[in-house]
């Protein structure tokens, strides 16, 4: 299998490999001349080796107490030498090990053995948004992944990096086309409105709107509107924290109901200037295809359908069976149209360094990815980040600045060929004629490749910056403010050129069209805050008060141009015969809040955390704009009680929280009764149309969250276990209530007196299975079980949701017909006639509840390290049901799953599936449709997937301060599932499934 291709992105790879190779043979470069010149007559040279007891440790920082400037780093063999005074003390520190203080006592040779420090995990500072908290002392529920987890994954979307790695966070990819999206649900679906379950994203303190920037006119390649999250460069992320419970999210008030995703970017590190480059290249292919019929099987089905329908002659347009098309031709359309290999290449570089007071980081990246479609389409993404940290010498003043600029350039077919690949008859004609032109077979088919003429070109520029200034006015009293600014601009075009059409019909460029979407979003945020920390005896107090002013302005400008003098002018909308402005809109979202936090910590044993926020949002009508949210959280660190100290229990914490958060994801201006320009011109007048059914009275949706959790660590945290139970209740649901079409609209914004409960249990287990010498093996497991339930819904029976929900059932149910097998006499599917009226019809017979919520999901991650080798792999698992892929009733001019060969023929020759029809048999067409809406189509879509595997090896370079690492990464490599209809992750009709990807890369740091 030709997985690796070094044709394009490979050049950089070879280059670096070569450099690394050369360097490893150059002993002169290893000499540290600087070190020798700094030795002075008052000092002497101390030499030695650092090890963990069995093998040497490279990269350990050795400095002198009270003089961190004179630091050196151990080389690959663990050796170091440092000049020091006779009475100095060495400070030996290395991540993951206990810091060692070693008085020199006039020695010149000191061998140092470092102790693994497993308890540092408890000391890790976790970002909670407006404040950070020690892992051991947090009262809220926060899941976290760091750059270490992200670096092993060949993915470009920030949500993809979290998939399978966080308890309580369910993430689903929605298309395999690059630049597409992911769905995220943190602790289940809270809102009945499916598009109101997005979490709040915050990058370095700046809210990042995930509202779509795509348009339905242009982004037809994707199942939904394109979200801006693809702009975030995953390589620049230091950590992602997901805030889940009330204690963690209530400080985000109205926007915290669905959880908060905090993204912290990498910052500069003090010390000598370090350069780092990495490059990788690889390939991707579709994970799984459907098992479809071949030509003989398919034609057999077709012919049988004609017999079944009593038709003695094939119709003039039944080209597949009537002899017009070659009856012996076979094309595996899935392979032909989706079987390509996506070429992936990635390059990154960064430089970081700085002094004790000022550090910087500058990094850049470039990513290129082609598609599996049979034509050259490229997704490109590049960007740069800059970060600067400064503090004054007295450490009172601090400044953190970060800015990033990312560019995406996506060139895709505007049409996903997946549906064609699955439905085209296997004996459909060749794609190209003998001259290499698109083959139209005398107009008897629509060549699917013609669709590739219609292209989506999208480019997005995203600028994001943030400054945080803080000043310590008095001891423990800090005044700070953050200033954030984002500017996102998207330009998308979709062309529909006449060359898509069959040349027989003489399509001319006068019918060619172009759609364009220019969307810009600017936002600023200012968040002045004041914090005060003071210790009194065993009590420690932390106070935080602040306010938020946020303004977000979105402008959208959609154009359509039709009729060009020539197709070569199609991108010049000025050349279009008719140009129409489809939308010219500007929306403003303003948001204001006050928030505060009081944290009390008694002797690191009892912790109380109070948070509150008062929010105002322009999305609500006068009188409904403000609301107050808050939470209380408490933790008891019983492992710090005297009687448990120094026992096998290294961490024992019981924590609980309760609070209220809100949700304002309803879109802007929904409370106004307005007319909108429709863009359509009639008789010289541009039309105005009613914008929506209006309701000025809707208000905040509230979400009450309760959580109780136990966190434990054993044997110096070699085993860490946590269990959390949560129960969230959303009420006063803000929804677009579906309306019958007779109202003129299909929805209205309103608060619904319905209550939805999400509860579940989340487990995480992290074990250090082996730790022998330089060999270590760690396992992380996360498991989430969820239960979603509609608790109450007054008037459900008479409401428009009658056919969607059931009290006591999850939101993610479907009411279906009850499948009763095949009628052996007629050969048509049968269903339960629930109301016994003799007809199977909706809604009365469509009453069987099927739950499509995942029962449980999670991931198991293993990390194995041995000397320079490390292996990291993650299995993701989901237990869920889904429907089989609907392919239409067998016998029409459309391919089918191979398993449908087993169909009913006569009352004597039964089968699993109903009789075929060419489309004339109304009962069979109806039967097939009802089947797709029945329990018969529900199948097990659970899967276990080798989500990610990464193998890396540190080249044993004979060089100080230079590291070279070779990395092999794989994504979605193996999938175990009973699901027969392709990839089990999602079944969105006709969209490309996720890809499996293998990349090889090299990292060089010096």
């Amino acid at each position, binding site marked *: 299998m030709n997985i690796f291709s070094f044709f394009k992105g490979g050049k950089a790879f070879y280059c670096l490999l070569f450099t690394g190779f050369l360097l490893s043979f150059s002993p002169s470069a290893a000499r540290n001349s600087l070190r020798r010149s700094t030795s002075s007559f008052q000092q002497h040279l101390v030499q030695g080796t650092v090890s963990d007891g069995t093998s040497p440790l490279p990269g350990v920082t050795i400095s002198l107490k009270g003089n961190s400037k004179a630091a050196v780093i151990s080389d690959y063999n663990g050796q170091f030498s440092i000049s020091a005074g006779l009475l100095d003390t060495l400070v030996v520190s290395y991540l993951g090990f206990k810091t060692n203080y070693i008085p020199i006592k006039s020695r010149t040779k000191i061998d140092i053995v470092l102790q693994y420090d497993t308890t540092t995990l408890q000391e890790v500072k976790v970002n909670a948004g407006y404040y950070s908290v020690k892992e051991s002392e947090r009262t809220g529920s926060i899941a976290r992944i760091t750059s270490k987890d992200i670096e092993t994954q060949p993915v470009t979307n920030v949500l993809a990096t979290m998939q399978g790695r966080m308890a309580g966070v369910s993430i689903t990819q929605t298309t395999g086309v690059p630049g597409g999206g992911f769905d995220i649900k943190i602790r289940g679906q809270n809102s009945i409105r499916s598009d109101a379950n997005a979490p709040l994203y915050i990058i370095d303190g700046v809210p990042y709107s995930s509202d779509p920037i795509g348009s339905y006119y242009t982004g037809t390649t994707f199942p939904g509107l394109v979200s801006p999250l693809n702009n975030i460069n995953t390589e620049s992320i230091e950590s992602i924290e997901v805030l889940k419970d009330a204690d963690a999210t209530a400080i985000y008030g109205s926007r915290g109901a669905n959880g908060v995703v905090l993204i912290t970017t990498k910052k500069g590190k003090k010390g000598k200037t370090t350069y780092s480059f990495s490059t990788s290249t690889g390939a991707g292919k579709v994970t799984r295809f459907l098992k479809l019929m071949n030509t003989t099987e398919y034609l057999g089905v077709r012919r049988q359908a004609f017999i079944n329908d009593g038709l003695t002659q094939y119709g003039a347009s039944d080209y597949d069976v009537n002899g017009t098309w070659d009856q012996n031709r076979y094309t595996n359309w899935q392979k032909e149209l989706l079987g390509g290999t996506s070429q992936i290449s990635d390059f990154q570089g960064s430089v970081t360094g700085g002094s004790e007071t000022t550090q910087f980081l500058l990094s850049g990246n470039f990513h290129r990815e082609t598609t599996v479609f049979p034509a050259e389409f490229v997704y490109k993404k590049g960007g740069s980040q800059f970060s600067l940290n400064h503090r004054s010498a007295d450490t009172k003043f601090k400044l953190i600045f970060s800015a990033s600029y990312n560019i995406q350039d996506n060139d895709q077919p505007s049409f996903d060929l997946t549906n064609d690949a699955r*439905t085209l008859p296997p004996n459909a004609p060749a794609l190209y004629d003998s001259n290499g032109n698109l083959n139209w077979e005398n107009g008897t088919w629509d060549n699917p490749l013609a669709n590739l003429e219609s292209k989506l070109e999208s480019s997005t520029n995203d600028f994001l910056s943030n400054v945080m200034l803080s000043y310590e006015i008095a001891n423990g009293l800090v005044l700070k403010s953050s200033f954030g600014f984002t500017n996102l601009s998207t330009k998308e075009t979709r062309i529909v050129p006449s060359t898509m059409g069959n040349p027989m019909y003489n399509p001319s460029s006068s019918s060619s069209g172009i759609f364009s979407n220019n969307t810009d979003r600017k936002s600023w945020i200012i968040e002045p805050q004041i914090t005060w920390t003071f210790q009194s005896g065993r009590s420690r107090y932390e106070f935080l008060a602040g306010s938020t002013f946020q303004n977000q302005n979105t402008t959208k400008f959609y154009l359509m141009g039709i009729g060009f003098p020539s197709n070569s002018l199609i991108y010049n909308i000025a050349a279009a015969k008719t140009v129409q402005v489809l939308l010219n809109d500007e929306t403003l979202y303003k948001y204001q809040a006050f928030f505060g936090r009081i944290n009390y910590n008694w002797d690191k044993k009892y912790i109380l955390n109070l948070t509150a926020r008062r929010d105002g949002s322009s999305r609500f009508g006068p009188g409904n704009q403000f609301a107050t949210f808050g939470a209380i959280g408490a933790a008891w660190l019983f492992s710090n009680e005297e009687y448990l100290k120094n026992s096998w229990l290294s961490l024992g914490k019981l924590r609980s929280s309760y609070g209220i958060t809100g949700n304002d994801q309803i879109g802007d201006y929904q409370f*106004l009764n307005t*007319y909108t320009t429709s863009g359509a*011109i*009639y008789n010289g007048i*541009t039309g105005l*149309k009613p914008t929506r059914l209006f309701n000025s009275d809707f208000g905040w949706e509230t979400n009450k969250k309760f959580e109780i959790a136990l966190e434990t660590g054993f044997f110096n945290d070699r085993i860490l276990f946590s269990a959390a139970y949560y129960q969230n209740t959303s009420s006063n649901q803000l929804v677009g209530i579906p309306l019958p079409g007779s109202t003129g609209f299909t929805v209205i914004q309103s608060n619904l007196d319905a209550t939805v409960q999400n509860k579940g249990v989340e487990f995480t287990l992290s074990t250090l299975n082996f730790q022998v010498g330089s060999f270590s093996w760690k396992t992380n497991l996360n498991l989430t079980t969820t239960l979603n339930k509609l608790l109450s819904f007054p008037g459900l029976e008479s409401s428009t949701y009658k056919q969607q929900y059931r009290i006591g059932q999850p939101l993610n149910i479907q009411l279906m017909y009850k499948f009763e097998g095949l009628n052996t006499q007629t050969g048509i599917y049968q269903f339960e006639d629930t109301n016994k009226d003799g007809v199977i019809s909706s809604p009365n017979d469509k009453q069987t509840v099927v739950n499509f919520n995942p029962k449980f999901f999670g991931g198991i991650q293993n990390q194995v390290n041995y000397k320079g080798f490390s292996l990291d792999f993650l299995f993701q698992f989901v237990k869920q049901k889904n429907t089989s892929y609907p392919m239409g009733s067998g016998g029409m001019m459309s391919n089918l799953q191979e398993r449908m060969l087993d169909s009913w023929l006569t009352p004597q020759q039964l089968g699993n599936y109903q009789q075929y029809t060419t489309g004339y048999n109304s009962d069979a067409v109806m039967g097939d449709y009802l089947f797709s809406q029945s329990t018969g189509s529900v199948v097990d879509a659970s899967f276990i997937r080798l989500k990610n595997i990464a193998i890396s090896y540190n080249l044993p370079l004979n060089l100080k301060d230079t590291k070279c690492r070779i990395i092999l990464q794989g994504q979605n490599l193996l999938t175990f599932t009973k699901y027969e209809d392709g990839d089990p992750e999602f079944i969105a009709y006709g969209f490309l499934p996720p890809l499996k990807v293998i990349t090889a890369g090299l990292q060089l740091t010096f």
Partner: protein
Amino acid sequence: MKSVYIISEKIICIASLVLAYSCNSFVEVELPKSQLTNTAVFEEFETADAAITDIYSSLRTRGILTGSGSGISNQLGNYADELISIEKPSNSSLFFYNNTLLPSNSQIALYWNTSYSQIYAANSIIEGVRKSSNLSNSQKNQLLAEAVFIRAILHFYLANLFGDVPYITVTDYKTNSTVRRTPVSKIYEFIIKDLSDAEPLLPANYDSSERVRPNKYSARAFLARVYLYNRSYSEASDSASAVINQSGLYELNMDLSKVFLIASSETIWQLQSGNAGTNTLEGSFFIFSSGPPSLVSLSSDLAESFSNGDMRRLNWIKPVGNSSATWYHANKYKEKNTTSSSKEYSILFRLAEMYLIRSEARAQQGDLIGAKEDLNKIRNRAGLPNSGAITKAEILNAIILERKWELFTEFGHRFFDLKRTGRLDTDLGYKIGWDTTDSLFPIPESELNTNPNLLPQNQGY
């Protein structure tokens, strides 16, 4: 501890500074520039006028009356016996052609939802105009009459496609979401009432030379059709006469190739094509220049049913062949693409239909001579001799045939004619998928799910 208090005071001071800066008005926003408040729209004639013309462009591009492939000119042509659908998974016409519509068919839901959203827009104008304090009476009358006219025509098609449907006259969603079905007979009463209200308020002359907004006679022409469908023959005949008698305004176009041009003197009401140079959606959908056609073609049975010498076959139907076969397409609208200036608009009412309505109404009332006179007017124009029909039944048969030839692929006339004269089963029974219950479309499943008051579903679904 004293320092603690001093610090607390500092905090309170600074905090109040920060907090005092904020005020509620921060979160109030202006209207977005693409929107106008409801009241403002009806304070000026120009904006109120833009609200009504928007419904016309919506009628042209969406829903039942659009000339595109999703409108009834195509779909009912397939559903009855005028058109042939090519089998192809992408062809939404196949379900119509095979008469295998399901309640979940998205096209059906679109007919329903789009029509009612257009009706909502009309009702919103009626309510807005009535409340307006700024518009003059004559402006109010014109807007009201046009809105009522639109409301009536949409309900007319809904009732003929779906049977008993709600007749919606208000915008209040609470009322409209639990509404019940109005019997067809009642719907006809409402339509007649609406049209009779609108007619006197509409101007006799068109506001421009293009006849793209209904005038008084558009309402009369529509009334003539409604009365005919409702078997009120004398009213149908009177209304048709009222239009026919406006000889200064309307005149049969003797050159058949010019009947569907913008300036045709026989046009009573047509939908303008939007941007300059654009022609009809019918033209761009039906016309193909080489075979086989990509989606639909005119049934060869229809093409071959014309009598020898019928000029309509020459002028309005075009054969397209290749070495092995010949196909036909409707060629009433002759422009597939844009032209330097628009040549054709989509015609909803034209004079020929008025003659055929009066002919049928007269025959039904026993005025066989008058009936034949009108019938022959249409036949002669097509280059055919006078009809040989003698008895009432023969004449009525001849009229239905004449309507088939005259009005094919125009907004489902053929299907409605067969339906109102009880001929569906005899004329369409040859189709394998045809069932008696196919005379009505299914009520969209989504509609029954959200408004159970509309139950039961139409027979057969």
